[in-house]
């Protein structure tokens, strides 16, 4: 396998594996937020703010993998 092919493969693996965890996390956050909303519809704005913050945290993990992938690809 050539170096270039290995590099492309490592980029794909980095982002693919790195996205698994955050994907599960974001799904859980979303489902729990909807559950909380169903139990307590008055707290919608508080739930939304907390959910978006938690989503940003989970997303940040995927972004770390993305940064690594981008560095591998372009640097």
């Amino acid at each position, binding site marked *: 396998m050539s170096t270039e092919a290995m590099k492309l493969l490592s980029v794909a693996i980095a982002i693919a594996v790195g996205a698994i965890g955050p994907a599960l996390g974001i799904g859980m956050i979303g489902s729990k937020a909807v559950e909380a909303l169903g139990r307590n519809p008055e707290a919608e704005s508080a739930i939304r703010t907390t959910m978006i913050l938690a989503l940003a945290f989970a997303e*940040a993990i995927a*972004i770390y993998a993305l940064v690594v992938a981008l560095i591998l690809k372009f640097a």
Partner: protein
Amino acid sequence: MPKISIKAEIIFHLFGYSITNSMIASAIVFLLTIFIALYFKHQSTLKKKENFYYLIKFFVKSIYDLFFSVLGEKTTVFFPILFAFFFYILLENWFGLLPGVGSLLIKVKEGHEEILVPLLRANTADLNTTIALAIISVFSIQYFSIKYLGVKKYLHKFFNFSDPIMFFVGILDILSEFSKVLSFAFRLFGNIFAGEVLLTIVAFLVPVLASFPFIALEIFVGFVQALVFSMLTAVFLSNAIVEHH
């Protein structure tokens, strides 16, 4: 396909310093921030105010209410630095989405050959900027922690010799202060830079109309990242100024 570069490109040299395209963009955003702040201050003294004043005021008020839910009555003390973070990062993120930023190219001599580089680059898509912002944020957290707790209690948080478990937790706490810088910096940089790459690639795949939803997404992401940066600083601050048990 345009060349995507992770680091900011050097435009020219000034007294031995390299001026990069992201520094030019940051100077523009910096002046804009100061201009809006002075405009707001000037308008607040007038009797008849313009509509733009009320727009900014609405922004400030909603963000203040959000921080109030985290910090309580201490919000008045910390609001200037938190809102400064929020507003500056928001303007920088949105400045990168303007037409022309990243697409206006100029010729620059590198070594012996001339290359084309973008004249402006979204400032938060440059790792130097986000690390600088993160260091300011984490240092201000330490500063306010020392100010509210005193040096002795501040050090007690990290060096606790009462039992081996607390000692180990203290070491982990020291490490976590450093990792805060990294997580702040990479979160902001990664989100904005990934957005730039996404917009570039989509524009080259489908030239017409396809970029529109992605630009709307990037406007939202820019807002959320500015909010997350300042909100996290607020949460860490509120943890740092209360005594550790």
